[in-house]
């Protein structure tokens, strides 16, 4: 059985508020969401800002990049360099961590994060 979920598109910031090939943190109520401007690939991603490894609110300050043959986009936590897929949220450093990912759309240079 399939269900549809309404996604609320929340305005986060302007495109030039997020550094190229880097991240920024968005406040949504009590939630902190990391937004990534992967300008090298012309792509945008969003994940939770909390690194599950040591519970630090820092993923938006991490370095992004890619790994493997299929160039999976990833972010590395600045604390201990745990890396996470920006597509699936899966931890790529061999640990049993999972982070939440969010859809992102850009309209008229405005960045929206989709929150379910």
């Amino acid at each position, binding site marked *: 059985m399939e269900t549809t979920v309404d996604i609320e598109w929340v305005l986060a910031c302007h495109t030039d508020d997020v550094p190229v*090939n880097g991240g920024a943190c968005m406040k949504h109520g009590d939630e902190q969401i990391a937004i990534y401007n992967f300008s090298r690939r012309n792509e945008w991603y969003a994940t939770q800002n909390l690194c599950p490894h040591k519970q630090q609110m820092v993923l938006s300050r991490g370095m992004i990049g*890619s790994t493997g043959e299929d160039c999976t986009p990833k972010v590395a936590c600045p604390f201990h360099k745990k890396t996470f897929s920006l597509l699936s949220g899966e931890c790529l450093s061999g640990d049993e961590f999972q982070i939440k990912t969010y859809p992102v759309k850009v309209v008229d240079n405005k960045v929206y994060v989709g929150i379910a």
Partner: protein
Amino acid sequence: MSKPTIIVVGNGMVGYKFCERLVSKSSGFQIIVFGEESRRAYDRVHLSEYFNGKSADDLSMSSETWYADNGIQLYLDDPIQEINRSEKTIHSLKGLTLKYDYLVLATGSSAFVPDIPGIEKDGVFVYRTIDDLELIKAYAAQAKSGVVMGGGLLGLEAAKALIDLGIAETHVVEFAPRLMPRQIDSAGSAMLQSKLKQLGLNIHLNKSTSEIAGDHKIESLKFNDDTSLVVDMLVISAGIRPRDELAKLAGLHTGTRGGIVVNEKMQTSDESIFAIGECALYDGMIYGLVAPGYEMAEIVATYLIGGDKHFHGYDMSTKLKLIGVDVASFGDAFITEPDCRTIIFEDTHKGIYKRINISNDGKYLLGGILVGEAEAYNILLQTVNNRIILPPNPEDLILGSRGTEASEGAGVMSLPDDALICSCEAVSKVAICSAVNDGATSIDGIKKCTKAGTGCGGCVPLVKDLIAGTLKANGQYVKNVICEHFDYSRQELYDLVKINKVKNYDLVLDHFGKGDGCEVCKPAVASILSSLWNDVIVKQDTIQDSNDRYLANIQKGGTYSVVPRIPGGEITPDKLIVIGQVAKKYGLYTKITGGQRIDMFGAHLNDLPAIWEELIDAGFESGHAYGKALRTVKSCVGSTWCRFGLHDSVSFAIEVEDRYKGIRAPHKIKGGVSGCIRECAEAQSKDFGIIATEKGWNLYVCGNGGSKPQHAQLLATDIDKETCVKYLDRFLMFYIKTADPLTRTATWLNKMEGGMSYLKNVIVNDSLGINDQLEEEMQGLIDTYHCEWKEVVENPDLRKRFAHFVNAPEEKDPAVKFEPMRDQVKAKW
């Protein structure tokens, strides 16, 4: 037109070598060889092996058919009797008269037999040919005691032969006061003598023989000092005499003490006649070793095919095993002070004597003597011949490194490519290494394809080391790449970025990499870009590690710490007050660091620009505590206050810290300056440490604290400030350019082939010829210094980056919490 005829008189090792060299160069000659002995040329160097099982065939230089195969006519057992120079003919004992275009005299030498009464008696032999050996062997069967006259190289070889033949009691008598007077000094000779005595050889020095007594056959030797020695047989080995009688008869110039005079092309006074080997007298000297003889053969062969090679004397270094005792002498073995400095090691317990002579400036090895243990001979000889710069402690060459770390400086792989490994066959290191690479991985394979080791055999151990070293280098070659995105080492990438003048990460990735980069290559490239162009790093903030991105050190809970630069640990009361005020205002925890400065913890990301604005206003600069860059130069209080201080360590530390501040490197760099040997600044635990001496400063490098502490090593002694700074410029720049990412100087040095002696060579002796460049590049970095925080504070766009929430820039991270501790705060999370 018929081929020119070359007649070779003499079929010894050198005569054979001449034929071999000539046929390998040209087939345009008719070669005719006359030999006096009935055997084809054989290996005279290893003659004594005839007694431990080698046959005459084993010793032969060539196969039975070699001469015929190469179109050479060989007449054995037929010595030449006469040369007719006007007719250009020779006449042999068996009656052959042949015409020559060129004549090569390779008549060698004979044993010198002194004119002593009784010399004709039975039981008196010389030690020169296989025939001599067979006579000795036959006679030795009923001899119980034997004596060798002559304590030189050949005499001791002969003594060994007697021992091998089972003579119960073997003596050596020598006219001179010591053994092997031509090769080793008296101390070495004394050591050799005691060693040989232990092995059962009886040695009599200062003995001049007056008579060989006995009825028909020898019964005893009588000496001038009225003593005598009862023996059954005598082998005379009192030196050699060049065989120049034929040349003399033909009217060629000969020396007063024998030898056919030749010029540097080995031409005698008749330009169609050459002389090579032990019969040739060049510049007043007879060369009684096989290697120079081969060189002479090569020169004549080259000349005949129209080439131009000259003889300029020859290195008479030699190593042999005499009755189980290694003896070697190399280079200038006898030079003494004040023309050199001498290092001597003597161990009478083990019977080892080693002497090396080094140049007065300590840079070069001039020569030396080894008795009892000569393993280092080849590498020492190479060190002399290639003028390799000596390590700081040259005694290590003969004692081995006595620290925990082995010095690899003298390794065979570090020899230059053109180092002559086999001097007999003139084979260079690169020739051997490439033969190994081409598949010749055994000593026999190398002998076959390069001929190295086929002459005197002295280089065989070195050839083995080269085979092993080359294989190892091949087998263990693992390409050291940065990450999956760059197929280069940091050093390679550094050079590529530099040569192509690429100034940002994306271009570096486009040009030299693949994919989208990662947390490994981004900071590595950032460091390279910084070290090359010294741009403001926040311009490319997202390729920096978090600390460099926000110019502060991220701490538990996601706050940052702030460390202003306090050069040399010196700070005014006013500046201390400012730090106190700022810390109080922003609620920061303060602590004195290990590097003599003050760290303020617990700063919100949003507060960083404001904090720095206040600090910069008070005259502070960034301390780069967040960067892979110079941290601090720790100092003791030095001569300005300390009653022990020799020099002003604080001023020097400040000067050095200011010089290198902000420069990005593969890892952090720490320094220290101590004003005296008490070393209160702990400079020897730093990447560079400077310690005052009576005469100047000692410079230490590559120390490390951390989990694997390592003491810094001495790079230079008693240097002045200017030299010290110059060496530091070179050292740091060399490190910046060549180290792998996140490699401290200590690890960098540990991985460096050749270790400290290599590094010293580069920095002090400019062995790579790059020091001007290194100094220039360092000056470029120093000239482009800027305080990164000042740039940020003054730039609103850059300041904007220091917000936690992009959509609520004024709000601080609510996840950050503190709790009190000892009147300050600590992070709660």
